[in-house]
């Protein structure tokens, strides 16, 4: 690896190290209940939203009402995107003449964007009109990210409140996240991206005549604005089919780095916000450390195998790192860094073809998602996922200090364990069940373009990506069929809303509890030891569920090289 590549990782870590604690501090103020920076600017804007929607700004909700509001809101969102997709052919702002989508594709896309998955069974250039992109997909890029953050904040409230029936107000959390966090950062980022060459217009295709005499159709679009929130909100749905490998989405090495930074920013910051909100910053550091360790470990594995390259290809003379499916502009290390970050954050944006990674490089990407998107995970979903694992860790190991387990003073008892067990069970059930069915049923199986262990990886990747709301594709499957559109949508919905309901129920259960004061006898959760333990539990308990399929997929493929 060249020094530039090392420097790139160093700069990225430096950027995160500076910006995440700062943003975390800001987020803690935004959700802390008191005065927050920028009240004078954001306050009137928020009140306008509340008045328009008839929201009682100070009304508190129980977890059931909170979850109900979230589901109603998301249901409406799915309907809106579905209708836009179905009708886009006859609606305005359609210069590239995208046709209206069929019901299965429209449903899959609507679910995909509302669940923050952004799995795309269509090509952006031809499959979505500008209206769909702007009023449907871009809007959901903001709102689905805000919904995730709202749930995470509700869980943190559950941990901090004592003997309380309520966990906040969904509508207020949604508005504050959008207005105070996502919009301002996305606007600045969009301008920076535009300055680097990301386009921002309402054009359709422009025909260009090249020097060689051929004619090229060059697409237009509101790329810079959508690109910013695509990364910032860990969405990942590209304006174009090539996603962040497209020069209009990701024009330079600088934008490549900035996009990686942007998709990691909020998930890492939430760990710091959590520490501040629970009144002990070291708690936040412990969560951050576990997230960071898993992320950097995966970066190490993927980069190593991508740089080392494929021995079979090298045997026929193509020396060097694995460049298949990668942008020459970025090279193997930067592509691996992007790929790991995008799969570790439930983003799913890609600047290289994951399908073409080396077996273990690609396997690392698959494993990242299997961990449940907690390293650092999606906006909000990363924090609540990691907190669920932290509670699980406390439950398993906490007894060893001679007290019944407690996390941040909250006793972990039967009800909490029921919810956590369901949380642990839901995603593997969806992934292994649906992928298992898909590899043996003749119809879905025939959609696989590859066979053997690589084909298995492709199939498992598709369901892992959708159930964990990542949305990146390993490709290799003709997935725009009724079976895949439907099963993948089920996976996305279960991986999103089933888990959110469980997390909100957990928040409600925790909020009702008394808080046990900390003492020398309390299981220490703000220590490096706990961060290490958390990593061990995530790897042993979660990843081991998938060990057989990982052995038959990436590991077998690697050993066969």
């Amino acid at each position, binding site marked *: 690896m060249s020094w530039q590549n090392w420097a790139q990782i160093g700069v990225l870590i430096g950027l995160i190290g500076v910006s995440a604690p700062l943003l975390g501090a800001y987020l803690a103020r935004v959700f802390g209940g008191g005065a927050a920076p920028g009240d004078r600017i954001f306050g009137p804007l928020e009140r306008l939203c509340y008045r328009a929607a008839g929201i009682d700004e100070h009304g508190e909700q129980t977890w059931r009402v909170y979850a109900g509001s979230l589901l109603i809101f998301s249901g409406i969102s799915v309907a809106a995107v579905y209708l836009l997709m179905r009708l886009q052919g006859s609606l305005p702002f359609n210069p590239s003449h995208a046709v209206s989508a069929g019901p299965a594709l429209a449903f899959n896309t609507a679910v995909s964007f509302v669940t923050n998955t952004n799995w795309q069974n269509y090509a952006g250039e031809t499959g979505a009109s500008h209206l769909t992109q702007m009023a449907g997909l871009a809007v959901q890029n903001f709102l689905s990210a805000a919904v995730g953050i709202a749930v995470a904040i509700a869980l943190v409230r559950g941990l901090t409140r004592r003997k309380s029936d309520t966990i906040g107000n969904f509508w207020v959390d949604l508005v504050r996240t959008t207005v105070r966090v996502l919009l301002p950062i996305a606007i600045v980022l969009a301008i920076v991206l535009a300055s680097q060459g990301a386009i921002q217009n309402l054009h359709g295709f422009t025909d260009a005549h090249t020097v060689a005499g051929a004619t090229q159709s060059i697409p237009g679009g509101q790329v810079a604005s959508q690109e910013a929130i695509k990364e910032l909100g860990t969405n990942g749905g590209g304006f174009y089919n090539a996603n962040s490998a497209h020069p209009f989405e990701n024009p330079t090495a600088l934008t490549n780095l900035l996009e990686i930074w942007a998709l990691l920013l909020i998930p890492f910051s939430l760990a710091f916000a959590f520490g501040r909100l629970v009144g002990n910053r070291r708690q936040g550091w412990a969560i951050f450390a576990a997230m960071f360790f898993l992320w950097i470990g995966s970066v190490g594995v993927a980069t190593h195998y991508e740089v080392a390259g494929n021995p079979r290809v090298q045997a026929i003379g193509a020396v060097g790192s694995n460049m298949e499916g990668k942008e020459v502009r970025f090279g193997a290390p930067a592509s691996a860094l992007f790929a790991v970050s995008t799969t570790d954050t439930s983003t799913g944006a890609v600047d290289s073809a994951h399908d073409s990674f080396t077996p273990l490089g690609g396997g690392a990407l698959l494993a990242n998602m299997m961990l449940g998107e907690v390293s650092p995970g999606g906006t909000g979903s990363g924090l609540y996922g990691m907190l669920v694992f932290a509670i699980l860790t406390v439950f398993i190991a906490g007894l060893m200090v*001679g007290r019944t*387990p407690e996390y941040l003073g909250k006793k972990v008892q039967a009800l909490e364990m029921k919810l956590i067990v369901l949380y642990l069970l839901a995603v593997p059930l969806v992934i292994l069940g649906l992928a298992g069915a898909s*590899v043996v049923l003749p119809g879905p199986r025939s959609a696989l373009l590859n066979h053997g262990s690589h084909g298995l990886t492709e199939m498992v990747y598709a369901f892992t990506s959708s159930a964990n709301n990542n949305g990146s594709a390993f490709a290799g499957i003709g997935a725009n069929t009724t079976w895949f559109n439907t099963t993948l949508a089920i996976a996305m919905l279960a991986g999103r809303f089933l888990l959110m309901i469980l997390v909100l129920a957990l928040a409600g259960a925790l909020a009702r509890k008394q808080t046990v004061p900390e003492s020398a006898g309390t299981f220490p959760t703000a220590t490096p030891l706990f961060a290490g333990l958390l990593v061990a539990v995530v790897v042993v308990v979660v990843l081991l569920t998938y060990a057989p*399929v990982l052995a038959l997929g990436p590991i077998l493929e690697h050993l066969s090289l």
Partner: protein
Amino acid sequence: MFDPAILRQAALDSVRKLDPRLMAGNPVMFVVEIGSVLVTAIAIKDPSRFAWTIAAWLWFTTLFANLAEAIAEGRGKAQAAELKKTRAVTIAHRRGVDGTLEDVASGVLLMDDLVVVQAGEVIPADGEVVEGIASVDESAITGESAPVIRESGGDRSAVTGGTRVLSDEIVVRVTALPGASFLDRMIALVEGAERQKTPNEIALNILLAGLTLVFLLAVVTLQPFAVYSGARQSTIVLVALLVCLIPTTIGALLSAIGIAGMDRLVRRNVLAMSGRAVEAAGDCAVLLLDKTGTITLGNRAATAFLPLDGVSEQELAEAAQLASLADETPEGRSIVVLAKERFELREHELHGSHLVPFTAQTRMSGVDLEGLSIRKGAVEAICQLVEEKGGSVPKQLVELAGEVAQTGGTPLAVSENGRPLGIVQLKDIVKEGLAERFEHLRRMGIRTVMITGDNPLTAGAIAFEAGVDDFLAEAKPEDKMALIRREQAGGNLVAMTGDGTNDAPALAQADVGVAMNTGTQAAREAGNMVDLDSNPTKLIEIVEIGKQLLVTRGALTTFSIANDVAKYFAIIPAMFAGVFPELGHLNVMHLASPESAIASAVIFNALIIVALIPLALRGVRFRAASALAVLRRNLLIYGLGGLIAPFIGIKLIDLLVSAIGIS
């Protein structure tokens, strides 16, 4: 630990416990049993050495789990059998309303019946002494041969059915029906018949059932992936993988750990009325310790009479003695004794006197006699009385009291007709070695609060000497209650001991209320533990036992889950190496053959249960240290150990298995 008789019975019981209706209560082991049946059926239909080996070891796994529970229960049953001997039906002399005695079998006694028990007779039922005083041999339940005094009134009035009166005669009011007596409950408890799962055990069971489901899912869906890959697996191999992955170690030992925890308490002569209380003991953050008997040796005793100017020492002694005649407390008696020793004062016959007993509210006692009104009590109370009677409190009285208090003694003021006479000095002797134990507790994050009726100054001096964290002085029963409520409102669990009737509400309110066996029936009913030795210092041991129980549970859970890594490395290559020789690289233990690898993992999984039974019964060694230190140590042993041990164990078993070729 392993009595052959108990082991023999346990071996039989472990087979009896194979009854699926019993197994269903333990989801992890129930899955193993279903797997055993399945593999056995396959082995019968399609016999092979491998199939029978796996079938046999799966049954052993189930039996070993049952054995662990049966051994734990067996030890309790042996104890219960001893107790049952004392529960024989006896003849009771029931006293009718008209005072006549009628002999009836103890089994027909009703609540509130009055029975007369004479020297040499067995007390027929639990009850309260309403008349008389007697020495009672309670060795049947406490194992302590020295007789104890039981008398009407006061805090030593409770008697237990099955114990024997050694001297004198008492009248007992029956407070428990036959079958619901203390002894019956004790038998049921040590037998484990009344055992209910504790809250943490229920939560842990949910996790274990959840993990079982997760791995069931992983194993069931493995087949389609295997079929796709062209490496279909036999049912035997899938069952073997499942049994190895689900947390059988902790699943097998969980109930044995719980029973053994209760048993450890019983061995220390403490009866926990529920497992919940044992768990709560481990969680306690505050211990309320009565000064008397817990922190100080026995009771305070009068050591000096300190008269005011103008009053002779004898005058004060006489008044103090008179005032103490109605005072049945040890302090009161010690004043009488001191007066007798110093001035040869005999106890007076008190004709036409009116005795004023001590109450926690007035905090004084005394006597009204031929125009004399003598009172003795807390200095504040006497001062208040003097002022009420229109007198003024001499400065010297307060000074004397202050001097006594500053040296850790307790001052009692004495007044005659509203005129203060002086101070009686009572002294406490603090038990040795307590400061160190309190320091241990502090390191575990447990705060000790000394409860005393003393004034703040005295209390402070003793608290300092004993090394407690805090004290509650001049404590009335409602203060104690308020303190418990306050701590609980702050989220702390509170443990306390108590014996008197006025302790009953606090004992009921505390999360762990240890009643002294010598105490009143009300106290014994209110607490959730009874200490048969009536040694309040034991509260500290109870907390340690509670913690040890939880640590053992956590250690074996961690061990069990950490084991999975090695088992995957044994079984996955074994499953697929036939079709994909490349996966042989994952066979890091270099196990001889796929069959021996799978068999070795299953055998290890079964044997580790047996190997850990002693640990489950004895409990993990618990040291008083901070949570961080305890965690670090246990993680190293049971976390890292759990990761490494199976690699070594499976390898060794594989060497053996492949050498003798049993698979």
